[in-house]
């Protein structure tokens, strides 16, 4: 695993929400998608992913459903709820504010 960068809980939540923005995925799929959209920087282990998924599910931002997967086995699929989408937008905006400020600070 190239350079294990530690992920804060809040950051992981944001990534999961973003990963599901395009459509529903099962647990493993979420992990693969995060790897994809971060260009391989973050590879989330099941040990961190599943607790986070369940937490977001209970918070009401995701909903889950058992569906047949691509190979016709049953898998638990997660998708964004309406409040989940709102939460994603809010957290993304917040992240941008922080990133801008950090960038400015580090350039100074």
């Amino acid at each position, binding site marked *: 695993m190239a350079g294990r960068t530690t992920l804060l809980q809040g950051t992981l939540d944001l990534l999961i929400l973003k990963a599901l923005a395009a459509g529903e995925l099962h647990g*493993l799929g979420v992990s693969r998608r995060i790897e994809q959209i971060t260009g391989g920087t973050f590879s989330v282990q099941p040990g961190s992913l599943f607790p986070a998924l*369940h937490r977001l599910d209970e918070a*009401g931002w995701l909903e889950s459903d058992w569906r047949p997967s691509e190979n016709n086995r*049953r*898998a638990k699929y997660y998708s964004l709820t309406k409040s989940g989408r709102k939460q994603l937008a809010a957290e993304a905006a917040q992240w941008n504010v922080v990133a801008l400020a950090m960038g400015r600070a580090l350039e100074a």
Partner: protein
Amino acid sequence: MSFKSRGVSLWRNLVHRDRVERDLDDELRSTFDLLVEENVRAGMTDEVARRKAALQLGAVEPLKERVRDARSGASIEALAQDVRYALRLLRRSPGFTAVALLTLALGIGANSAIFNVVDAVLLRPLPFPDADRVVHVAWDGGGHLQSLSAVKFQYWHDHARSFEAMATWRHLPARVDAGTNVSPVPALGVSRDFLRVLGYTPVLGRGFVAAEHVPGGPMVAVISHPMWRTRFGSAADVVGRTIRLNDEPVAIVGVLPESFAFPYENEPVEVIVPLGLTVDPNDVAENWPTVARLRGGVTREQAHTEAGSLTESFRAAYPNQVSAQDRGMILATFSELYVVDSVRRALWILMGAVTLVLLIACANVANLFLARAARRRGEMALRTALGATRGRIVRLVLTESVLVGLAAGALALLLGRWVAGVLVALTPTEVPRMAAVGIDWRVTLFTFVASLATSVLFGGAAAWPAARAHVAEVLRESPRGSSGRSRIRQGLLVAQSGLSMVLLVGAGLLLATLIGLTRVDTGFDPEGLVAARLPSKPAGYETSQDLWAFEQRVMQQLEGSPVIALVAGASSLPLERGINTPMTIGGRPDLWGTVEWRAVTPAYFQTLGIALAEGRPFENTDGAGRPPVAIVNEAFARSYFAGENPIGQRIEVGRVKGDWIDPSRVGPGVEIVGIVADIREVSLRTEPRRTMYVPQAQAPTLLSNVRGTMPVFIARERFPGGDVDRALMNAIRAVDPGLPRPQLFPLDDLVARSLARERFGATLLSVLAALALALTAFGIYGVLAYTIQQRRREIGIRMALGASGPQVARLVMVQGIAPVLVGVILGVLSSIAASKLVAGFLWGVTPTDPATLATMAAVLLGVALAASWIPAREAAGVDPVNALNCG
């Protein structure tokens, strides 16, 4: 974060746990399958694919654990789990649980009981409706608070605008005849608006009307709710019925509500009757306690200010009612007026003492839990290895201790209630509001908080070392790392011994005081003496001559009585406050002071058995119109006539240095004709004061009437067992049947009653000290027994290396005695430091009395020795072969 979503999840997680677990299982299994598929597609064989998938998924159990922890309700679930587990553990060791429960229940229960009393007497607000509008009106007589005189009461009643109503009352000893039984009942004579001030309305009938508050008005009464229930069976037609009160028919006009409470008397009031207040400007007797209800919208401060400003106009209107050092009318609190300072201090000291006992009990239970925790070290280490955090382990131990603590608290509440009941029965009557002692929310809350606090205290003490257990070290075969724990245990023993020492010293000092007081020579012989005291003074006995005539007639009635040998009258009894007056020795203006003054009949000294040292006793010829005489006691003679003969000298009563207090008192004074032995006229604790006695026939009315009481009679029985009571009562009856029934009691009771406070305090503190001693002894035994069990191997080795039984026993005993010794020293130092607190209660012994300190130290060390004896013997009996094999 949606609450609804959380709520739903919480419900689901707690109630449908199985379904949730199965769901997670399925999800993880499906993820595993997907991974295998992925790997196979990437070209691996089935077996390699499965192995890789397993690695990718990671350890399943910890994963599930983490998901569970992330769920809502995880902590609740964990708590429930801990509680269930703790209950199971506690049930499995019933001996441990019982001992811990009992020890704590005793400690918390004692605290609950004392707090109950402290709460009832000092903390609870008054029981009246809207009690914060009720104020106490008192007269500040230059530093001390007094009740009002009738004149003052009337004046403020008429002029004070900040009060909606004012009321006063007087205790009336009453006898009620309602049909077949005659019994004494606590009764009150009350002024107008009494019920209005307190805020009660009768549930049946009415209160009193103005016409009934006139002296000589119609005889009516309002009865209490309990009396209505028990004597009249809650009959609806009780209004209008008559009862016989003190042999007079009295019509019932109302029934008080059940909530009626009168905290100014210790017995619940059963009957109230209207009082007609006679306002005599010359009457300065301050006998009228006063309460008032503030007018709506008026604050306490405003009322206080008005009371002060009215004092000035009062002083102008009635100058003889206000003396120079009086500061005037103020508003006071119930506590200031009715709770004596020493009582308040005593209660708080008691609270402190009982807290010490609780701490000792906690130390014992902490030791018990420590021993138990040590046994569970293996289990704790395993838990840590499985991923439990330190917080989780601490929570586990705390759950157990909180369960025990709360259970003990519930037990303590019951125990405390019983103990409080016993306390109420035994408390001397000068502690007010004892009737209010009972379980209310404050006491329950206190008990609950105490249980919780003690649980956390001893649980924490036990949990802390458990949480620090190092896994590797603990799982090794022979655990050696118990030094830290044993230091805590030793420390607890030191603390217990120290606290016990403090309590023992306290109890010892109070006991020494009590014993010293019982040995005090009262100066008279109370055996075989009976006193008759009339509770009030009716009309017709205003002057000294009236009193003397009354006494004479009673004594005549008893002449030749078969049961009474001698009888005398006096203005007050020994050991009770009497009258004191300023005086100057005739012709010597520098010899002046305040002395005790008593008016007595000639037979007084003989009846009481007081020896005449010099001169002559009073004769019947020392009457009105004859030269006024006096007899003084030895203290008086020593004080003013050291080396001279006082006989023949004169005392100018009412003269201070050169000035007469009152122009009416100017005169040649009284001549001293005799000297009698000292007796304790005021109290057992007080040294005999300078006292002068005058014949009642010659006593000035002004002095005779200061306390407004009838003279008391003292009779000496001819032989034991005679009915002196009846003879006295009949004689008084025969002379004046209109007098209220006298109180009759043996003088022995008086002496005992004067010691009531000391006896109570000494008993209470001794009980607490004994409790502390027992708990400490138990603690020592427990610690030593446990230590021996833990160190059997070490003992075995020592014995194998040649140590003898007695040597080992000595080792063990030293282990038990050493911390106690340290504790004793600390306890002695603390007692010395705290000596000022108890100094006020002691008599005849200093707070740092070496004899007491030494005795109590010996007691504690002796108990420690005894407690160490059994474990020491057991250690000496250890079989080295056995110990080395099993260790």
